[in-house]
């Protein structure tokens, strides 16, 4: 995969794996690939993968079992919390940017709703054609 070289690589690895967990590609309790395998598939250094894993373990999202490997936590609460954090982060980004343009809260809500409707139509068109 392509990384943004301005952002620490370990952080981007963490984001990739968290995205997979939230999207359900990695289910709670799933075993993560071996470190070297992850490094090869992401084309990054083994040490960087290790650092990303260490942080994910510290945050409780990944559970390390000695001699068996690393697993996604089966604690649904943590996954849910992770999801909420991500949603909050993206919303904050959106909100901050629009707010900076002096767009009122009310208008933001309206624009978002309208946008979602348009996207919905677009997706429908795509599936029909």
């Amino acid at each position: 995969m392509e990384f943004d070289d301005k952002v620490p690589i370990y952080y981007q690895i963490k984001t990739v794996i968290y995205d997979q967990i939230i999207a359900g590609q990695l289910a709670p309790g799933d075993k993560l690939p071996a470190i070297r395998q992850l490094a090869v598939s992401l084309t990054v250094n083994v040490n960087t993968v290790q650092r990303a894993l260490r942080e994910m373990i510290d945050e409780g999202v990944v559970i390390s079992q000695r001699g068996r490997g690393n697993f996604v936590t089966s604690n649904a609460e943590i996954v849910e919390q992770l999801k909420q954090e991500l949603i909050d982060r993206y919303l904050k980004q959106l909100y901050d940017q629009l707010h900076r343009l002096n767009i009122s809260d009310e208008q933001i809500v309206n624009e978002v709703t309208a946008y979602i409707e348009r996207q919905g139509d677009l997706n429908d068109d795509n599936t029909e054609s």
Partner: protein
Amino acid sequence: MTTTLKVENLNYRRNLKRILADVSLSLTGNKIVGLLGENGAGKTTLMRLIAGVAKNAKGIISVNDKTDLATRKSLISYSNPLGGMATNKRISEVKDFYQQVYPDFDEQKYNQMITFLKLDESQRLSALSKGTGEKLVISLTLARQASVYLLDEPFSGIDSMSRKKIINSIIQWKPADSLMVISDHYVSEIAPILDEIVVVKDNTIVVHKAADTIREESGQSIEDYYESLYGEADSND
């Protein structure tokens, strides 16, 4: 055991020209370190001095606290195994030679690599393209079970497909407890696999930093950061 490569107060002149001045460097652990600098900055010379094939420098070079030349050569795998070899040799002959003179040559690993890199052992060195030549060099260099790997510009002048395969081989086959130094004058292609970078400029080392620290502290890409050292900050325009 973690590997330590130490260079202390290294000074080197050749043909009445200063090439390295007061170079000190300490690398530890199982990292991959990028040795960056313009062409002619002294990257190759530094590697050749560490590997023990360049002579007459003042200063101390040690690997795992060993300074003896022959011992150092046994701990270091330097990526110039074809230097001076007759070009009419076949890959299989080169491998036989390597296997004979390096007690730490791992044939099984070598075979895995040449299969992955699709090297044809019956080819002669003179018939190899730049990319294929580099693939052979990587296979020979990594097939040794060394403490330190010195790869001198393994990507210069080769196509992106070969480059990707070589990078993958490095990730896959670099022994877990070894130290690796990769030199390059063009950093963006290897930036994601580097733990640390060392920049050689004006005959000496001007920067030695962790790659992610640079990204965190400056918010710059490694390439932008590297270029800014040369005063080419106009890349932001």
